[in-house]
């Protein structure tokens, strides 16, 4: 096959030609992968070939080495490793040759492919001469600038792909030397220097040892600081990016440079081009991140400052805050139209918010004069900036400090909701929502009977403002309501307004003067919070009416005209929001006297949910699933009548391993259904169990779904009791395998730690359910595993990373084991004594539930021991 022709044809504007070419290439790849890869690399390296075919050759090569999906990536890695070494070395030669190509596209593609090969080979201790070969390009006098640039790029990408432990220190030293030399202004032109500073950014992680050496550190910092004032803004921006990264990785080593860095960043924020100034602000935001993290860490330990805390933000406060306040005045005219817009004023406000979180009260006297001086000015920029500054510092300082100012300012803010400038109204509404979110709670007096009527009337009027303002108003209502959550009887304070709020939110959700579904989504989500906070039963009738209205709207979504994929997405989003509201209504009325409202509408709801499923051929609607789970629990055994129809959707949800959230929710719904139906779930268990077991052995399924599946085994076993016996031969090996796995996983980070805990909790919950289910009839089936269970529990007990959830589940399972197997375990319990120590630890806990569980387990074990 003529590879050049195929590569060109694959980019043809003619769809038919393209399809044929693509399938030819695919066929080639499948039939002879090594040869395919070799041909691609030859194409990329060949200066006689057109740039277009070389480019695509490079991309295909890259895609044959790496994929986003980790399972696919693993497959690709295996394939590459299996390729004949002689062919691999030809390919790598071709790639290195291409770095010297006069065609910049080819150079750049090649450097990316080199990094992908390196990411596979260097950790396997292969291609050990790569770094040396690249560095040789840099040290040879006559190397053209284009090759140097491509080489630096390659070094940067390689550093990005591999981990610091994959390189020897002398290699790191050589890379850093080459990169830092590449930044030298007198020797190199723009492109080489930009490539060098970008490469340095990627190599910073590798420079641990070099940063710990004062001389080397001083040198690197000096070069970066010089680069931060280069004449080209792209290079200045890249230099500040390096400084941002250094602030995060090497916070503890920054002190000697802070004065210089402060001057550099302040100048950049004040006067440099926006892209540079944004990075300079980001430097301070990052310093705040670090100091907030240090303060949180210190707050949790009694050992005081175990981590060095230099209080850079506090020390720079008097000069930093004015610099940031200036940025607030640099708004853009259309900045409120887009969500998450990023410009000087937004970055400055965000940084100011972080400063407030870092230093607390100290920020207030530095910001308030700016607020007072500007908030009454009629010019919108001043008024908006003052409001934004005030809103930004509401989190961090103490309530005592803020409450008087908020009290005095609230009336002014409410009247500003009628300001002619929509910028001002937007920021004012946002500030109100921040006030309610952070400072309003049942115990605070920010809102009382004297100002609530005014607040409500302003909010209900402003919700009709332009969409971006209306969205912020929804946020304000959301947090206003949330402040009354858990307030007990005082949540009925909102009762007089409830009708109007609900009506306003429903009509806001219907607005057509919008460019996205953000407003309608905010309106429905706010409605959820209103439902949660409405006190039942006094508002039960209103909630019942709302339920009918929402069901009606859900019905209308089925009539929507669906032409494009956008229509489809709009329908799907709307259905998700409406199902969300229904779910919240069910949860809220559940357990109250108003439960009949739900039961009366159960049929209608279920019909709607099934129609929602029917609208979406491939995916099962997550929100509908959640709502069904809530409904199942509420209706109890009655839910059995929906099962024949619902089951296939449930099964599909459980099989949806691509969208793991859907799968995860579906697993939870199985639990709800087990508790609703008890042994009536039996006819569906074969189906459910086989999908769940398949899910567990599925390498692609997101790991977070697996622990809940184990817990779900417990739910099923508890519901069907002795009938679970037939699944035991499959389930026990899975549980034992998972227990073993949980002991082998190395906890290098918090996520992994948490995962191991979740996994173990799931395992314990599974055993608890099985033991309880078998207790009256088949307990002896579990006898052979009792020893393993005690060993596993002991291992978990000794794990210092064990969290409280695992502790609870483990202690409860110990009790279940003693309860179910009784005197059979007398010797086992007598021989392994850790349980006494374990229970002793639980009795020291602050958690009532844990102490109570431990008390019960102690009783169960004692009963075994005296039997």
């Amino acid at each position, binding site marked *: 096959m003529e590879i050049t022709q195929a590569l060109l044809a694959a980019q043809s504007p003619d769809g038919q030609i393209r399809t044929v070419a693509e399938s030819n290439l695919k066929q080639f790849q499948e039939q002879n992968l090594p040869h395919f890869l070799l041909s691609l690399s030859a194409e990329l390296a060949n200066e006689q070939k057109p740039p277009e075919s070389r480019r695509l050759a490079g991309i295909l090569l890259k895609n044959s080495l790496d994929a986003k999906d980790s399972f696919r990536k693993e497959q690709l890695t295996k394939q590459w490793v299996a390729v004949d070494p002689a062919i691999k070395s030809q390919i790598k030669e071709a790639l290195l040759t291409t770095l010297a190509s006069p065609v910049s596209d080819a150079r750049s593609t090649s450097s990316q492919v080199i990094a992908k090969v390196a990411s596979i080979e260097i950790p396997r201790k292969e291609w050990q001469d790569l770094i040396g070969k690249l560095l040789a390009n840099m040290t040879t006098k006559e190397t053209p600038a284009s090759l140097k640039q491509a080489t630096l790029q390659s070094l940067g990408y390689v550093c990005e792909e591999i981990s610091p432990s994959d390189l020897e220190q002398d290699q790191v030293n050589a890379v850093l030397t080459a990169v830092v030399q590449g930044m030298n202004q007198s020797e190199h032109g723009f492109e080489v220097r930009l490539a060098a500073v970008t490469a340095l950014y990627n190599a910073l992680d590798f420079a641990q040892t070099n940063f710990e050496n004062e001389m080397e550190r001083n040198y690197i910092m000096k070069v970066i600081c010089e680069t931060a004032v280069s004449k080209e803004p792209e290079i200045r921006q890249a230099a500040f990016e390096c400084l*941002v990264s250094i602030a995060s990785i090497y916070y503890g080593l920054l002190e000697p440079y802070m004065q210089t860095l402060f001057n550099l960043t302040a100048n950049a924020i004040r006067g440099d081009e926006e892209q540079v100034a*944004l990075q300079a602000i*980001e430097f301070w*935001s990052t310093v705040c991140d670090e100091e907030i993290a240090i303060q949180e860490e210190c707050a949790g330990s009694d050992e005081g400052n175990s981590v060095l805390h230099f209080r850079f933000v506090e020390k720079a406060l008097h000069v930093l805050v004015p610099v940031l306040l200036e940025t607030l005045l640099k708004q853009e005219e259309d900045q409120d139209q887009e*969500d*998450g*817009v*990023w410009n000087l004023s*937004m*970055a400055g*406000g*965000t940084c100011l918010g972080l400063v407030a979180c870092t230093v607390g009260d100290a920020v207030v006297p530095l910001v308030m004069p700016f607020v007072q001086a500007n908030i009454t000015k009629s010019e919108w920029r001043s008024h908006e900036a003052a409001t934004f500054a005030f809103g*930004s510092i509401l989190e961090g300082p103490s309530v005592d400090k803020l409450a008087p100012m908020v009290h005095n300012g609230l009336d002014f803010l409410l009247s500003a909701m009628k300001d002619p400038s929509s910028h001002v109204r937007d920021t004012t509404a*946002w500030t109100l*929502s921040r006030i309610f*979110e952070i400072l309003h709670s049942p115990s605070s007096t920010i809102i009382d009977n004297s100002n609530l009527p005014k607040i409500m009337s302003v909010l209900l009027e402003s919700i009709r403002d332009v969409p971006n303002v209306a*969205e912020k108003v929804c*946020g304000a209502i*959301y947090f206003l309501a949330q402040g009354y959550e*858990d307030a*007990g009887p005082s949540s009925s304070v909102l009762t007089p307004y409830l009708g109007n709020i609900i009506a306003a939110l429903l009509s806001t959700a219907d607005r057509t003067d919008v460019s996205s579904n953000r407003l309608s989504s*905010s309106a429905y*989500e706010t409605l*959820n*919070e209103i439902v949660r906070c409405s*006190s*039942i039963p006094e508002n039960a009738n209103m909630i019942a009416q709302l339920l009918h209205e929402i069901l009606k709207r859900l019905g209308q979504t089925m009539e929507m005209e669906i032409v494009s994929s956008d229509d489809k997405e709009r329908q799907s989003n709307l259905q*998700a929001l409406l199902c969300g509201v229904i*779910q919240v209504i069910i*949860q809220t009325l559940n357990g*109250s*006297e108003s439960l009949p409202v739900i039961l009366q509408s159960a049929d209608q709801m279920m019909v709607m949910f099934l129609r929602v499923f029917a609208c979406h051929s491939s995916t099962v609607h997550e*929100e509908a699933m*959640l709502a069904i*789970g*809530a409904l199942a629990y509420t209706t109890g055994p009655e839910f059995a009548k929906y099962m024949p129809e619902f089951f296939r959707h449930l099964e599909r949800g459980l099989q949806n391993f691509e969208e793991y959230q859907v799968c995860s*929710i579906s697993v*939870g719904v199985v*639990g709800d259904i087990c*508790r609703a139906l008890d042994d009536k779930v039996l006819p569906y268990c074969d189906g459910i169990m086989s999908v769940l077991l398949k899910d567990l052995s599925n390498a692609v399924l997101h790991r977070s779904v697996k622990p809940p599946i184990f*817990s779900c085994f417990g*739910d099923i076993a*508890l519901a069907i009791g002795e009938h679970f016996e037939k699944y035991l031969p499959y389930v026990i090996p899975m549980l034992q395998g998972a227990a073993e796995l949980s002991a082998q996983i190395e906890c290098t980070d918090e996520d992994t730690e948490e995962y191991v805990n979740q996994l173990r909790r799931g395992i314990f*919950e599974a055993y608890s359910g099985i033991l*309880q*289910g078998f*207790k009256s009839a088949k307990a002896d089936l579990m006898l052979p595993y009792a020893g393993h269970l005690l060993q596993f529990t002991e291992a978990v007990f000794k794990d210092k990373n064990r969290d409280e959830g695992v502790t*609870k589940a483990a202690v*409860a399972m110990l*009790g*279940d084991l003693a*309860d179910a197997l009784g005197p059979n375990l007398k010797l086992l319990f007598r021989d392994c004594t850790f349980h006494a120590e374990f229970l002793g630890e639980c009795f020291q806990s602050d958690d009532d539930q844990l102490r*109570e569980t431990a*008390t*019960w387990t*102690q*009783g*169960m074990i*004692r*009963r075994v021991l005296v039997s």
Partner: protein
Amino acid sequence: MAPPPDHRRPIKRVAISDQQRRRELALRVQADRRSDAQNRARQLASSVLSLGPVTEVEPELEQEQEMSDASDQSGGRTELDPVRAASLRGPEVRRWFATQLMLPEWMVDVPPLLDSDWYVFPRPSGKRCFVVSSNGTTVSRLRNGSILHRFPSSLPNGARTKDVSGPSSSYSILDCIFHEADETYYVIDMVCWRGYSLYDCTAEFRFFWLNSKLSETGASDPPSQYHRYRFNVVQIYECNLIGLQAAYLGQVSYVKDGLLFYNKHAHYQAGNTPLALVWKDNVCSQYVLDTDNQGQIPSQQQVVLELQNDGSLTTSDDPPVALGCLSRDMIAQYGLRVGNLVRVEVRDDSVKLVDGKLDLGDLQLVGKPNRSRAFADTYSKVLFQYAARRAPLRIEDLVASIQSNPSVENSQALDIEMEG
């Protein structure tokens, strides 16, 4: 325009993320329900109240007979067994309940180590009952199993109010005395709390739990719409001289009916136990001597005993103690059947002590006891009542027993107070 750096969230982006919140809440609710379901299966759970309403019928003699059969079978059982209870219906529920209270023996001797191993508290006068709260209602049941009140209360899940503190089906059981005068339940023991059994816990722990947990609820608040009766804890004392004095003479808000002594290390045990003791004299009780059916104190001691098939009359102890017998004529004359309870009069001249055991000899039938009576007297009660009419165990004997313990200090206090 450049987007913000990956991890940087613009401060002005509205922070509502209700979907994640819904997801988390749903997961939390599911987790709660799972632990609820598992706890229920942990036999600590709800069947006690899900037994359904029981029609208020005074137990017939017929039923009493079965009831005592049931109590015979229950010999080895020490713990409330809801699984068994769940299968019970109607009158069976009452019978089942009737066997669940821990019943103190009467103190006929002072137990050793009274001051170090025992608690003492003044027993409120009134109706002993179980109070069970679950699923939004509270029910109190008398010793014979019949319902005293069904009402809303601030106990956990004791009323249909928005209670966020736990699954609504988890239940709590308190051992109480209902004091008519101030319409208050005085809690003397805690058997289950929020679904967790305290059977296997020591009295020391149960009292600690009772005091700390009850105060977390509003159960001791004055009555209100969702809280019909007040629940008060009884002040419990270490049984040293000071504690005994306080329990014996101290002012309380209720009418005292004797003193209760609880062994600190004893678990809650259904039925009669020597690890809880009751003692009375005329200072701390109006009811030292038993009354007859008319509420009068008879001139001769009367006891209620159960007829066995050999004609002997036995106590309700486990195993039963035979105290005397009834002639066949008498049985025939009154149409008595095995298991019936009878009220008999103790005649001084026929009472013998055989091997340290009381034998009442020939007994004079007075009649059948009150129909609500479910049990015969216990041996310790008969003995206490017998002694009370002749040589009662006096408060001085209790004091002396404590004083004889060398570890006791401050031994004068009680004597002095008692002079006055």
